[in-house]
């Protein structure tokens, strides 16, 4: 007999905002000059709307409205994840991440900057200036999603920390705690999970530090309380549940570079012409679609980011 275990993404009745409440709340938000992100999510699941942990966002230039009608079902966004800290299978993070405690949360900042120290999430992220960014998310495993993130440009966080001219790269680490992250009991990856960006990539307006998606705070399996999103790079660059930010002089070694340097490079830009040694990157399957579609250069963000890599051999710097 199969026992039906309730998935974490299945909302219980009391979590669902009544439709009338949702409408009136939207009016209030509109009056206040904010756009209700519930508008996007309500297209998919009317019940999501703005619940009590709903985040308010302001309009912005990079909102990605042109792919608004391609949004991936929130049940897939919160139920199909690579987050090895909670297990190797795609549904492990949704099942196992309840043990992660995200409040309080401390982020240690060090390296070449004027304001090193320990910060709470609210110190780094201005929750009154959140933006919704609808981005394509292309996993290196050749599947993709479209996700309405909520966050701020990483540049806004960086500006608060005031990096010095010696800061050439930014480096991130995920939490290490076997109690909270049971997947870390196995050394599949040498914990902590590490990632990094070149400073100009980090300062690019498309790069965000996300604290939510679909108008709500991030679920643990999506990298709560804050995670990186770099839409023109493969998904693994989006380091989750960040506890450390360092400003460094040398190119940092990311976790995947350590694990398989011939397969994963520092840049990891989405590029249909540079195959992974074991599979093609020319096509991808959008979650929810049956047929594959062509993968776009820089995941469709070439117009905005291609100049960052002028003169670079992208086959060599994959």
């Amino acid at each position, binding site marked *: 007999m199969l026992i039906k275990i309730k998935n974490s993404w299945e909302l219980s009745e009391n979590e669902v905002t009544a439709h009338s409440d949702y409408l009136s709340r939207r009016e209030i938000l509109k009056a206040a000059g904010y756009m209700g992100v519930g508008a996007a999510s309500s297209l998919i699941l009317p019940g999501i709307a703005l619940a009590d942990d709903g985040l308010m966002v302001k309009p912005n230039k990079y909102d990605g409205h042109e792919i608004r009608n391609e949004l991936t*079902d929130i049940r897939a966004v919160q139920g199909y994840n690579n987050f090895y800290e909670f297990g190797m299978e795609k*549904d492990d993070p949704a099942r196992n991440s309840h043990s992660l405690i995200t409040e309080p949360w401390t982020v240690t900042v060090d390296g070449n900057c004027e304001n090193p120290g320990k910060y709470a999430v609210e110190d780094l992220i201005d929750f009154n200036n959140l933006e919704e960014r609808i981005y394509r998310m292309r996993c290196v*495993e050749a599947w993709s999603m479209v996700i309405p993130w909520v966050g701020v440009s990483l540049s806004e966080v960086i500006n608060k920390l005031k990096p010095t001219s010696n800061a050439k790269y930014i480096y991130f680490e995920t939490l290490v705690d076997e109690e909270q992250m049971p997947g870390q009991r196995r050394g599949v*990856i040498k914990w902590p999970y590490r990632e990094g960006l070149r400073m100009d990539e980090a300062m690019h307006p498309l790069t965000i530090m996300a604290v939510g998606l679909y108008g709500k705070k991030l679920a643990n399996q999506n990298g709560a309380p804050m995670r990186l999103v770099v839409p023109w790079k493969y998904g693994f660059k989006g380091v989750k549940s960040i506890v450390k930010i360092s400003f460094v002089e040398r190119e940092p070694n990311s976790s995947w570079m350590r694990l398989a340097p011939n397969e994963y490079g520092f840049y990891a830009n989405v590029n249909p012409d540079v195959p992974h040694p*074991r*599979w*093609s990157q020319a096509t991808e399957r959008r979650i929810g679609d049956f047929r*594959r579609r062509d993968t776009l250069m820089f995941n469709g963000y070439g117009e905005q980011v291609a100049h960052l890599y002028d003169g670079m051999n992208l086959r060599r710097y994959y």
Partner: protein
Amino acid sequence: MIKDWRRVLIHILSFLPALWLFWQMSLWYRFLPHELSANPIEYITKFTGDWTIRFLLITLSISPLTKFTGWRLLKYRRAVGLYAFFYALLHFLNYMVLDYFFDWPLILEDIFKRPAITFGMVAFTLLIPLAITSFKFFIKKMAKSWHKLHQLIYIITVFAVIHNYMMVKADVLIPVIHAIILASLLCMRVYIKFNNRKASNKKQLA
């Protein structure tokens, strides 16, 4: 009516994983809740691949099991081997049809440029003649050469496990377990052969 209940049981058990898969696929097809994750084709790839290797390993374990326990299982080996082919065929069709939908340039690039796929494809290709010659007609007709041909199962299983190991992204635990089982099965065969030779040598001396 049914002469050999054990054979019926083996068929039922061997077909169960496929039955479950087809059931889940029919739910998926009708947009009903299913267990194939948000990316069903990837799930089917893993599921059919894993069951192919399991059936290959079970096939190889039947003769040592017979030797060590005395159970008379050898007569079921052909059936179990055919299930290995059956799951490999599902794995292959899923790759060709559902995953790449006959995108020949990509498929050919995969086969010729990516050793991980090459190993899998060679293993599957070699399984085809074994499956075809599994009918009694061929066993009688081919006599000794039938046994020679079916020795290919060793190479096929080795290639399948290599393919499994190479396709995994980070966690090699399961492929390594497969490899350990395969290695011990091969060691048992060497041991048995060595013992037999010793026994026959002794006889000759006597």
